[in-house]
């Protein structure tokens, strides 16, 4: 199994506060890993460390074969982060936004158009300003920005928030499709039932440390696709 994430005793600071106080985590290619934990446990910080946005100050951190923080730029080119904030410009249309971020990540026109179509913004909605879109439609536009860049490691912070059931099914389908094409997913979510059903493995964070790693119930009951059961890798 090709390692995508390898963290050992990783410490990261937010200001002077140790938001991550010694994380151990291994993720292999093709896995979907759910980060679970109470507010302030360090889930978002961990995702930002994996994206190369927050430098770890102690411990070992290797993502996609690049050591952090020294090779953060190389990591950033290969990951995609869907944060809670979104990165959309309110006065531009959904298509303008996806085109800008797609081109900013050197995506081709075909990838940009395909991304809009995949999230259901390929028709009339593509030319509507983001400020006039619903929360769910904005989330879809953000997802299209991520899809266009075709990341190897998807980092998703509360990806189901603000989505209706149809959009959640769409998101889960897209993640499975990405994994089938060789991508790896690490996500955080408070919507545990859906997120656990999606994941190969659940990692619990408390106060900036990983407390345990387990196979979600649905996985252990054999409800998941056979090719992904058993890939769970305990850190």
């Amino acid at each position, binding site marked *: 199994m090709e390692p995508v994430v390898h963290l050992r005793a990783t410490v990261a600071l937010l200001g002077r506060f140790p938001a991550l106080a010694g994380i151990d985590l291994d993720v292999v290619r093709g896995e979907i890993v759910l980060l679970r934990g109470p507010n302030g446990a360090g889930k978002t910080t961990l995702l*930002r460390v994996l*994206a*190369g*946005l927050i430098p770890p100050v102690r411990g070992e951190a290797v993502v996609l074969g690049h050591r952090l923080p020294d090779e953060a730029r190389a990591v*950033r*080119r290969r*990951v*995609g*982060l869907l*944060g*809670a*904030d*979104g*990165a*959309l*410009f309110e*006065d*531009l249309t959904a298509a*303008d936004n996806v085109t*800008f*971020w797609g*081109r*900013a*990540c*050197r995506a081709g026109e075909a990838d940009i158009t395909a991304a809009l179509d995949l999230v259901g913004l390929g028709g009339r909605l593509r030319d509507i*300003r983001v400020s006039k879109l619903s929360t769910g439609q904005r989330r879809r536009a953000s997802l299209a*920005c991520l899809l266009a860049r075709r990341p190897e490691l998807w980092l998703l912070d509360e990806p189901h928030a603000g989505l209706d059931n149809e959009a959640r099914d769409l998101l889960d389908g897209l993640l499975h499709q990405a994994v089938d094409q060789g991508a790896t997913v690490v996500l955080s979510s408070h919507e545990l039932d859906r997120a656990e059903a999606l994941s190969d493995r659940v990692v619990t964070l408390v106060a900036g440390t990983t407390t345990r790693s387990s196979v979600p119930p649905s996985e252990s009951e054999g409800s998941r696709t056979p090719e992904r059961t058993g890939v769970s890798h305990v850190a």
Partner: protein
Amino acid sequence: MWRDAALVAGRDLRVEARSRVTLHQVAPFALLVLVLFAFALDPARQVLERATPGLYWVTVLFSALLAVARSAALDESGGVRDALRLSALEPAGVFAGKALAVAAELLALEVLLGAGVIVLYGAEPAGVGLLLATCLAATVAVAATGTLYGALVSGLRVRETLLPLLLLPVLAPVLIGATRAFEAALAGVPADGWPWCGLLAVFAILYSVAGAAAYGTLLEGS
């Protein structure tokens, strides 16, 4: 780098075109400042005519503060900043693109204000070559410096008030140089104005290079 600059400039200008903030707020503000100067100095018409170059450039600088603040605010949210850092865009290209977009808006404003000083102050254009070269050099200088300082204060809670406090003193040489060059052009002695125009060009180059070099660090730090 220039491809990235074109992409970012296109985005910023498209946002301005769609939001129409420059058209509906910055341009009326600039004209209002000209009108207020005219009200204040109209009884002494000769003073108004003599002060036209200085009043013109003070108005440009005030308007530039609004344009720069708008430009910086576009990339202010946490999500956009993160996305920029995760993108393949060269920081120098982002800086150049943002500065180009601000410069394009300022040039449009300067044309409008030029018409304003002709109508309101009775200014008679002369030395057009020097006027145009001065506008170009001063605009690039203001846009590059403004974009750099906009990124510097980005993320700070007091950025709205801090930006003019930091930026206006730094732009004082631009105000002086552009005013002197305009005075020489309007007085019909352009030869006296070209050295000032040269000074503006040096200032523009220095801040463009400094901005392109520092923007990546500022993007990481803020």
